[in-house]
């Protein structure tokens, strides 16, 4: 993002007051971008952790309906299918 700003604005032509505003804008955008990246990473980690945690519980099959259906057919048990978003 900083690269884009630097390559689209010729800083020599910017008066001091505008440079301060420019730096302020860059700082704000950097904070927002960092926060967005952090939120996206959190979300990704949640999704990956969810799979690890549920797979660790041997009584649950994770996201594999064909396997669950085959197991139900083999064992004669009914299926409990839970459709649940990752919180």
């Amino acid at each position, binding site marked *: 993002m900083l690269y884009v700003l630097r390559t689209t604005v010729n800083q020599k032509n910017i008066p001091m007051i505008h440079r301060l505003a420019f730096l302020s804008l860059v700082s704000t955008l950097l904070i927002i971008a960092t926060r967005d990246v952090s939120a996206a990473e959190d979300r990704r980690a949640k*999704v990956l952790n969810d799979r690890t945690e549920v797979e660790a519980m041997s*009584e649950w099959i994770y996201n594999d309906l064909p396997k*669950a259906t085959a197991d139900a057919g083999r064992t004669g*048990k*009914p*299926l*409990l299918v*839970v459709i*649940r978003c990752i919180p």
Partner: protein
Amino acid sequence: MDQFVSVRLVQANGLNLNQFQFDYDLTFSVFLMNADGTIYGRYGSRSDRRDATKDISIEGFGKALAAALDLHQKYPANRELLAGKQGRTPRYLVPEDYPALRGKYTAKLDYEGKVVQSCIHCHQVRDADRKLYREARTRMPDHVLYPWPMPDVVGLHFDPVENARIGTVSSGSRAEKDGFRSGDELLFLEGQPIISTADVQWVLHNAPESGVLNAQVSRAGGKISIPITLEPGWRRNSDISWRVTSWDLRRMATGGLLLRDATAEEKSTANLSDEGLALFVEHVGQYGEHAVAKNAGFEKEDVIVRVDGKTEPMTESQLFGYLLRGFEPADNVPMVVVRKGKRLNLTLPMQ
């Protein structure tokens, strides 16, 4: 739980929509099934914007599991009774085939890449379905606008800690006139065994726009049949404001306005009577297609008192229906709002 094979599905990608028809606004939904695909019952209901667990409970879920086990033990002798739990063939067999989703998603999550962005959320199925009607400029049917009605809409309020026991019957409601009483246990509806409120919703969701449903009820140790009369427009009293898919209805119908019924105090402040239309603007969308109302001059805390010349009371959910049934994208709807005691004429473009 160990009497079931338990599987958790976390995305709608690749979901067989012929098999798995449920309330796509839910973030928790359960199917109890045979391995051959026969559905014993569904579990999972919601009717409140803030309280997602108002209509469900661990006790109720446990009773639904027990009832499903009972149906499983009687299977396949009861196969015919369960046939109605399977839905009609949908227009698209998997979510990613809908035009609004096609090319953007695949049948699987991309665990190695952008896994979060690769996920189709269940509610996107309903959003995509509604877009088909809107973009084709065809009337959106009531069952598409008001999906999976809670039985409350006919006056029946089920106890969430039971399978399908009626907690209360609304005074003066159609259900009361039909003969329902508090404490009745709904056993069968349209011949289908009922193990949860979600099962009742399934039958209501697929019911006609008017007609009579046949309920078999356990009362005081005996079994009796009671009709459920569905009057024309019966679905339109459903409150759909809690649904995440109502966000896109707000884009289409109200240009990004989030509305609620004005309180008595707000009506009094605006010098409005108790009888007329009074929808309070709680939020005004700020960006893109959700900023159409803002750009048309609507402001937060306005009270809408007239829509297309009509001043009869309407909820936000009923307003969606009125506007989406009566107007096409690019139509303009005249409205009157009260702002700080003054009446203003505004025009809201439909999308």
